[in-house]
């Protein structure tokens, strides 16, 4: 996986742009929030603010699954493509990636380091050269789901099990989460357990509730209609 591409636009960002309409709001003198000014503004998508924290945001309680019970699988419809337990997963080719991540709630975190198995490696381990369908739905413990075109998984995504050189904590999605950093971070499903390859796009948890079906931070695709 390559480091996040630099912004495609050549515009020098002096302040975060936002396509969200700005009603006039009273400015609270002296309020700056927690964010820090980034050195490289062109790494920050429009409307985002850099944080050194790592906020925890969840749609449900943190699941607890033992590594003995954990499995990750891929399927097309009812047809299984592959299933790995923790030991088997660790035996697959591991990749390390340093990426920037962007949450739709407006925080961005730069230079995050992850390790895991790329979707390409998983497909290869399942005997496939490429994804069998144009779309995929990631399913997580606790019922969360999110959809991603498979062209956005190839060469651009992994199932991550380590963050900042340590096992991924449960709060941040451990034992394993999907990592698709070029899209808003709600697509990087925590507690991922399977990828279902689908022929037609199907909205996941947030996509069915008004969030953008694709979610490209560089085009500020936060909500459907953006």
């Amino acid at each position, binding site marked *: 996986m390559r480091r996040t591409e630099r912004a495609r636009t050549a515009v020098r960002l002096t302040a975060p742009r936002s396509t969200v309409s700005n009603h006039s709001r009273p400015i609270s003198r002296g309020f700056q929030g927690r964010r820090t000014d980034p050195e490289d503004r062109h790494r920050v998508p429009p409307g985002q603010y850099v944080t050194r924290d790592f906020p925890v*945001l969840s749609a449900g*309680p943190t699941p607890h699954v033992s590594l003995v019970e954990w499995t990750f699988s891929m399927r097309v419809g009812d047809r299984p493509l592959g299933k790995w337990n923790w030991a088997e997963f660790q035996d697959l080719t591991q990749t390390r990636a340093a990426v920037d991540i962007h949450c739709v709630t407006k925080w961005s975190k730069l230079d995050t380091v992850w390790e895991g198995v790329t979707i390409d490696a998983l497909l290869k381990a399942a005997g496939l050269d490429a994804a069998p369908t144009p779309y995929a739905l990631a399913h997580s413990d606790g*019922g969360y789901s999110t959809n991603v075109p498979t062209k956005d998984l190839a060469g651009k995504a992994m199932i991550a099990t380590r963050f900042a050189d340590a096992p991924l904590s449960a709060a941040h999605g451990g034992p394993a989460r999907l990592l698709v950093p070029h899209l808003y971070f709600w697509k990087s499903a925590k507690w991922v357990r399977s990828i279902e390859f689908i022929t037609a796009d199907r909205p996941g948890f947030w996509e069915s509730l008004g969030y953008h079906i694709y979610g490209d931070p560089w085009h500020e695709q936060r909500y459907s209609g953006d």
Partner: protein
Amino acid sequence: MDIPDDGSCMQAWLDGNAAGGILASIFLLEPTRARIVCAHCRHAAAVAEQRLFALEMGAVLRCPACAGVTLRVAVTSHGRFLDLRGAEVMHFA
């Protein structure tokens, strides 16, 4: 209240009281006292008694008995979205 975002709030959840503002921007009747019958397990409880998650993205309310999603709401730049499928019924007395 502020919740420090150092990852320490793993098991912490707020209750439906904190979604009162978002819900009151949609419902004309006071929403936190409204009672929800969970569509998953039929447990009945006030909106204020539901377990609240994802307040930064909207609100996800979960049944205090079975943790199934009872109500979801998102506030977006194109309006508000409300999913009540997890509630068999919502009763505003």
